[in-house]
């Protein structure tokens, strides 16, 4: 397959050196993003989704964090080795990011107009006035009613959904090629979440921005993503286009995840409402098991799982699974 990735992450390893020890937040993660696609990233809390995203943005708090190794190729360059100055040029302009908490991610003492305009003025070198006009324009784009009035307001005067729209407006102000959305709707209500998802899909369709959609909600993935990466304990355990992931789920963890989520209308006819649970807990990132990190919770584990870390096996084009059970299937994939 020809590599026409817009952004390629190769073997990214990010760690936090803290008092308690070393947190292996991201361990050798590799993936690529095609232009104009929505790449979903799912996984439980603490599995390294945000750290991966922040590594791409080079926003890991240093210290304690550090990108230990790996490459992030964008536009033919390795982001990891860029100077901070060059990196700043990319941030907000070519690659933007929106965060989970719209409540706290906006500066409370500045008008939203200034905050949106700031990024535009910075990268386009325009005057304050022009940047304010841009802010109004952007707010209109993200469907904020009365944008001319809203630009003069402060974040606390806006509702949660509104603030998240402001964040999106800010991220899209410079027409970035890549938008990283770190759980953009987790803090919102379902009806507002629906609004925001709708908005993002529309904008994406129009602007052809590549979106990296981080979430822990399989529902959102199913509805939005073209391709999905499933992470567990700092590693990619499965990556596949959306439909194969749900239909031909490869990794036991992905399966468990899908079964343990209550889904409306999935109750048994006889009213038995017990869910299939994944037993045990996520391993500590400070002390990862030697072999497959999921092995301790895996119903199919064997000795090999506990001692040897499985590589990613390609089970079908574009579908990779990190599980020894897929070893046999992978031969097929590798041959193809």
């Amino acid at each position, binding site marked *: 397959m020809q590599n026409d990735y817009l952004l390629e992450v190769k073997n990214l390893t990010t760690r936090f*050196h803290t*008092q308690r020890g070393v947190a292996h937040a991201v361990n050798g993660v590799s993936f690529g993003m095609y232009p104009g696609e929505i790449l979903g990233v799912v996984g439980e809390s603490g599995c390294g989704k945000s750290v991966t995203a922040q590594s791409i943005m080079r926003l890991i708090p240093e*210290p304690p964090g550090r990108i230990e190794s790996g490459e992030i190729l964008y536009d033919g360059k390795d982001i990891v080795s860029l100077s901070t100055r060059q990196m700043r040029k990319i941030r907000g302009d070519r690659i933007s990011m929106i965060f989970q908490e719209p409540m706290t991610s906006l500066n409370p003492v500045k008008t939203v107009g200034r905050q949106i305009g700031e990024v535009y003025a910075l990268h386009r070198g325009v005057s304050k006035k022009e940047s304010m006009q841009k802010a109004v324009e952007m707010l209109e784009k993200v469907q904020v009613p009365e944008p001319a009035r809203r630009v003069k307001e402060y974040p606390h005067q806006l509702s949660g959904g509104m603030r998240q729209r402001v964040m999106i407006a800010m991220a899209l102000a410079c027409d970035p090629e890549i938008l990283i959305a770190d759980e953009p709707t987790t803090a919102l209500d379902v009806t507002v979440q629906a609004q925001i998802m709708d908005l993002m899909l529309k904008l994406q369709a129009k602007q052809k921005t590549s979106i990296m959609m981080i979430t822990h909600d399989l529902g959102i993935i199913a509805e939005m993503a073209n391709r999905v990466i499933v992470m567990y304990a700092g590693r990619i355990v499965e990556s596949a286009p959306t439909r194969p992931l749900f239909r031909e789920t490869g990794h036991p963890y992905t399966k468990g995840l899908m079964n343990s989520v209550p889904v409306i209308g999935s109750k048994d006819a006889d009213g038995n409402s017990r869910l299939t649970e994944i037993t045990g807990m996520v391993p500590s990132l400070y002390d990862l098991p030697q072999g497959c990190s999921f092995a301790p919770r895996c119903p199919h584990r064997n000795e090999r799982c506990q001692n040897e870390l499985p590589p990613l096996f390609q089970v079908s084009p574009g579908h990779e699974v990190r599980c020894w059970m897929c070893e046999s299937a992978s031969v097929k994939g590798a041959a193809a």
Partner: protein
Amino acid sequence: MAFSKAALKGKSNLIIGAVLTALVIGMAVFAPLLAPYHPVNDADLMVSEEPPSSDYLCGTDTQGRDVLSRVIYGSRISLSVGLVSQLINTLIGVFLGVTAGYFGTWWDDLVMGLTNIMLSIPSMIFALAIMALLGPGLVNVYIALGFTNWSFTCRITRSQVLSAKRIEYVRAAEALGYGKWRIMFGQILPNVVGPILVIATLGIAYAILTEASLSFLGLGTQPPTPSWGGMLSNAREEFFTAPWISIYPGLAIFVTVLGFNLLGDGLRDLLDPHKL
């Protein structure tokens, strides 16, 4: 808890503070063992204002008393001023703060009104008025400093309790049928002692300094009991002729106050996980 190397470094405050305060407390406790002379009775005018020597490591004061011994014994007074007055402040402040924060309503309004009034009188001036009323003396210093400086503790405690009250375990305790006082002092208080402790340590430092200031105005502890503030302010005229008389108590105050300040700051950093 986000810990980091920087947090480790930040702890040097705490460690230095703890060591300094421990030293001073040790000095106070073991004063009779450490002091080479009696601070009052071993006065000998024949050897007044002797510079430091092997006999008198820190020299002697105008009355011919060993400065070192007086500094060592003085730690008892200065520490007790700090501790006792801050204990009183903390008790008053915590009681009022906890009840005001927990009960709210008119009691809260009353306490806050009182606190605001107390806050608007500079505590130095309040202490001055009380000392003038009661006259100089150790117990009076306790009272003057102990009843004038609780408003800060009260405010902080109250705001802590107000936010602690919103944390669910308090609700949980109510749901479990706990009584009000048990919730206030058994459940909430242990969780807000951190900031109170910080304020108390800083308050101790403040009280020691204020006692020195009161001594400067002639309203400190009673002679001949040695107190650092008193020694310092009594010797201020000999500042140039016999500097050792004021330098050592000055240093002692400095070190102690520094110790408590560092301890307070260190505790604050320790208790607040978000300050690296």
